[in-house]
């Protein structure tokens, strides 16, 4: 039974993630006054990738890519998706989520750097430094919320925000939301912060050596990551949801918000990206924290 539930969670994450990517590409195309690909384009890309021949340099590359994908899918179990929650005891423990997500990035990093291509390793070193960049504002905002809700479980946070829009955290703690929103932009690797897979500078960064099946897995991992990160922010600030579709809708709104920024903004120089992340969002998060401590 658990296995079925597990597979159900995994597939919802992937499908919704791919759906968001497809619609997102359509949405960006429409911003650029182009017709844009059909919204199920992402599914086609994934099947095409899985049908292609693939290569790998050594067993660590395969193990790494698998670990990456497994890490992200594993984290989704810890996050409450609307009314569903996989574990009753550890329902959305924010500390576990944050550390389990690092398995994903560690796995991807290890697999990709096993390929021995300098472009991919530069990409990974940028990815990790950026991770430190966006973790600070995110953590400060989350700490504020933990103090307020007296527990580090997302489940309890969601239950505290139930009942009408007025007591959503986005209303009660607007600065925290702004900080997390900026951090989300970097988490998803969207345009101002897509220094990691910068196609023009380091030839699509980590994904240089990934082909066919490997690229497919990386694609699915990215989709699941979108689902996860938007899901976390929804639980934190938009008060979760009492039915699934409302949860997906809120996730989609957040994703579209970050896509709009992505479509219109150029790319940061790498040091400036980290410096920017440590100034603006961190300032907002600190203001929020001070407000919480003082009141």
């Amino acid at each position: 039974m658990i296995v079925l539930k597990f597979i159900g969670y995994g597939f919802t994450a992937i499908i919704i993630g791919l759906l968001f990517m497809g619609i997102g590409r359509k949405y960006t195309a429409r911003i650029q006054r182009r017709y844009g690909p059909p919204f199920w384009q992402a599914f086609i890309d994934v099947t095409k990738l899985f049908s292609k021949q693939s290569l790998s340099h050594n067993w660590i590359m395969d193990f790494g890519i698998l670990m990456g994908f497994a890490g992200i899918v594993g984290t989704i179990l810890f996050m409450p998706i609307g009314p569903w929650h996989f574990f009753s005891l550890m329902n959305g423990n924010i500390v576990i989520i944050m550390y389990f997500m690092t398995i994903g990035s560690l796995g991807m990093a290890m697999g990709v750097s096993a390929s021995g291509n300098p472009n991919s390793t530069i990409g990974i070193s940028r990815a990790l430094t950026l991770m430190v960049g966006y973790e600070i504002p995110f953590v400060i905002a989350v700490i504020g919320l933990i103090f307020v809700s007296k527990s580090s479980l997302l489940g309890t946070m969601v239950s505290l925000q139930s009942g009408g829009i007025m007591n959503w955290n986005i209303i009660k703690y607007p600065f925290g939301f702004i900080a997390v929103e900026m951090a989300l932009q970097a988490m998803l690797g969207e345009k101002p912060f897509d220094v990691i897979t910068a196609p023009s500078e380091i030839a699509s960064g980590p994904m240089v050596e990934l082909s066919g099946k490997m690229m497919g897995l990386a694609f699915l991992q990215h989709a699941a990551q979108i689902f996860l990160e938007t899901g976390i922010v929804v639980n934190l600030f938009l008060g979760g949801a009492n039915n699934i579709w409302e949860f997906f809708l809120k996730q989609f709104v957040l994703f579209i918000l970050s896509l709009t920024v992505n479509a219109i903004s150029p790319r940061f120089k790498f040091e400036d990206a980290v410096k920017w992340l440590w100034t603006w969002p961190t300032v907002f998060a600190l203001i929020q924290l001070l407000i919480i401590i003082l009141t």
Partner: protein
Amino acid sequence: MIQTSTKDLHDSGFEKVLNFFRKRSMWMLHYCTGCGAMELPPTMTTRWDMERFGIGPMATPRQADLLLITGYLSIKSLKRVIRTYEQMQDPKWVIGFGSCTINGGIYYDSYTVINRLSDYIPVDLTIEGCMPRPEAIMTGFQTLMDAIQKGEAVGYKKYKENYEWYKKNQDSVLGRTEPVFTSSEVKK
């Protein structure tokens, strides 16, 4: 529009089903040589928008399915093209832009340029024109997509079948270019 893939090696059965997905999401690696590269941005942007068919630019040969040779190829750059082509993963296709890839175009008599691209790597589709306009490129893509759907665009299989013939042609030309470092210097 000259299609050169042979009929007998064409795909069959399950491959055909997969071809629908391969057709609908072709990732393109354009080897921007000569003057063809200029035609590609218009086909990508608002007016012709190749992304409608799922075709988009990719940075590395590992991820690409489609190799666009957009102009004349000197011998030295042919060496790079061959290596990139071999680094791409099956199923892969090659589109040659303009007359330079068909018969050397206006540089047919120059000592550095190769005349027929298809002698060295299997070209699935060549779009003639001294630099084909975006409309021609779009129709080219359409034809390639139909060929893939029908399972006839199998240049990569042809390359594997008669690999020695291709290698002989390539060595005959590449023999004239000395490598930048002799192998002895590198090994020490």
